[in-house]
């Protein structure tokens, strides 16, 4: 059948059905918010099934996460790491690379920052210490992507598996570091505590540290990376059509490496901001495990770092308010995982139905392959 495959030639009618600006917005809104609404409704049904009052539950979530001043401040503070992890994932996913190892990258960076930070912030001027710790977190996060990046770039080894494996190793290593070289004087295994004077300053009149501002700036920068720069465009080509990337002369192996390093660095930065902004120390068994939970939101934000901001807010409300609501409902905080998983499922369904109707483009990263041909 070669040589005779007909090229589909869109008729004028098809062209006329291309959604206009307004339709595009409505479409994007439905695709982004629809899955969340469906997941919340389904979650409500599940709550009712296990004998909890869904209305009261969601009421608690909103009260504790949004409507109480202290809750709102916590929520906004929580958006900082989520935006940064999200930015890191966006960088990788847009280049078609599945970095699913953000937990390891985050935790290892956190261990280094919490281990060295208490000492560093007394040894050098605080502002310089912040910068150095941010760079340290970024370096550690980036370094932890090196092996998967190299295996992928050189041998085409599936990065899903390698990043996940490295993530588990990173989590274990972080715990070892906190119990070993970074162990503080406390009886439980945990690092030294950063002096309150060394913590990130709060914004005027609120209990929200300036790391949130940094995260907003980084989100803007990542948005700009893809909207404006040659590097971002190259990453996008690699993600959208890897064969075209080779054809137009992009050095794919090198770009894979750069992308992974940047992705890991942003995730490491999230850890630094969390430690120096909120926690001030790290316990050996601590793991916020943002990784897989942030993945669905990144897709809902259509891999757009600015669109990620409201979803980070959503995540903040759900985790701050959800912690309160699950406690009151006598449930584990893991209920949030159910909601996130459902969001993801409903997202593919929405995407499927949308594609069925012939609109929109595919925004999920290209499926990558273990035995992919070498560029």
């Amino acid at each position: 059948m070669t040589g005779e495959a007909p090229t589909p030639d869109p008729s004028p009618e098809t062209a006329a059905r291309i959604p206009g600006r307004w339709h595009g917005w409505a479409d994007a809104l439905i695709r982004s918010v629809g899955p969340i609404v469906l997941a919340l409704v389904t979650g409500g049904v599940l709550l009712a099934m296990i004998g909890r009052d869904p209305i009261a539950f969601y009421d608690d979530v909103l009260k504790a996460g949004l409507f109480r001043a202290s809750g709102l401040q916590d929520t906004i503070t929580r958006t900082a790491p989520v935006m940064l992890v999200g930015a890191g994932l966006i960088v990788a996913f847009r280049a078609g690379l599945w970095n699913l190892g953000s937990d390891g990258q985050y935790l290892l960076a956190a261990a280094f920052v919490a281990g060295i930070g208490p000492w560093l912030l007394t040894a050098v001027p605080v502002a310089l210490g912040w910068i150095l710790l941010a760079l340290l977190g970024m370096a550690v996060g980036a370094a932890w992507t090196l092996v998967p990046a190299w295996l992928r770039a050189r041998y085409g080894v599936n990065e899903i598996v390698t990043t996940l494996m490295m993530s588990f190793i990173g989590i274990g290593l972080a715990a070892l570091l906190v119990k070993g070289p970074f162990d503080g004087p406390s009886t439980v295994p945990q690092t030294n505590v950063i002096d309150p004077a060394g913590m990130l300053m709060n914004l005027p009149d609120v209990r929200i540290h300036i790391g949130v501002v940094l995260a907003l700036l980084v989100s803007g920068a990542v948005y700009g990376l893809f909207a404006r720069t040659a590097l971002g465009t190259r990453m996008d080509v690699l993600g959208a059509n890897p064969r075209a990337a080779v054809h137009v002369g992009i050095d794919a192996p090198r770009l894979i490496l750069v992308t992974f390093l940047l992705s890991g660095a942003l995730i490491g930065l999230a850890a630094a901001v969390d430690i120096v902004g909120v926690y001030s120390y790290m316990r050996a068994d601590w793991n916020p495990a943002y990784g897989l939970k942030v993945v669905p939101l990144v897709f809902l934000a259509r891999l757009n770092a600015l669109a990620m901001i409201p979803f980070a807010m959503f995540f903040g409300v759900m985790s701050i308010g959800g912690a309160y609501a699950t406690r009151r409902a006598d449930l584990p905080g893991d209920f949030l995982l159910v909601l996130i998983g459902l969001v993801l499922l409903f997202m593919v369904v929405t995407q499927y139905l949308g594609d069925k109707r012939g609109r929109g483009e595919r925004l999920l990263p290209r499926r990558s392959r273990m035995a992919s041909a070498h560029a």
Partner: protein
Amino acid sequence: MPDLLTPAFLTALIAGGLLAAVPLIFASLGEIIAEQAGVLNVGLEGMMLSGAFAGFLATQATGDLWAGAAAGALVGMLVSLVMVLFCVRLGMDQIIVGIAIVLTAEGVTSVLHTVMYGQSFPRLDKIAVFEIPLLRDIPVLGGSVFSQPLAVYLGLVVVGVVGWMIRYTSWGLHIRAAGERPASLDAAGVSVVRVRSVAEIGCGALAGIGGAYMSIVSSGTFVPFVTQGAGFIAIVIAMLARGRSWWSVLGALLFGMSLSLTTALQLVGVDIPVDVVTMLPFISVMLVLILFARDARLPTALGTAYQRGSR
């Protein structure tokens, strides 16, 4: 440095390794079947976890180990139906749906456990060890390989059976064809969707049994997240096994032994931190991946939905 090669050490290492390897054997066998058919089942961890919880519930209710295994298999199959519907039938993204399965299973089992047991973790009766007469008297191997719960032997039998089915039945032949070149299978008049669906459901059943084993035999109780990434390791084992079922035993044993190393070392007076132990299997996987990066060849059509006419 204490002498490591004492019989006690080796017995503990092999016995513990085998015990820890069984769930990985079952799960990676399932993943092998799915991957051979062209389905990358990232949700394996979620299927194992669901199977672990269901198996625990059933065994606790009936006191019967086999009821637990059956429940695990059944729930694993139910979870795999999500993959079948969304990915095999409708052609949605296998990775995304896989992640969704993992997250949802983690959340649901944890929530249900809390709802049913609160903060208590009831223990099941210890599973009887089945000592094979005569063979149990062999030094080292007798106390390790030939003195195990029946389920361990069963696992090895299943490996053989699955390996045989992949090689010697038309079902297995069609599975291999579906993963390698589905269009050829279609041209030969066999439904690719059907072959893949059966493979995926089989994978769910095996993963569920593997999970059930973890809660019923290995730990004797269910705690949330009990699988601890075993599902992901099983995926790697399956990738490296490349369809050869006995390799899943080899791989699983390697990782099982890296877990049992701690207990064995403690016996000879060496104490290594628990974090090192949990990391060891993953480190082994990475080392194997780095060493055999070029060999990790996967079925050509892995992860791609099949649609007739679109190549």
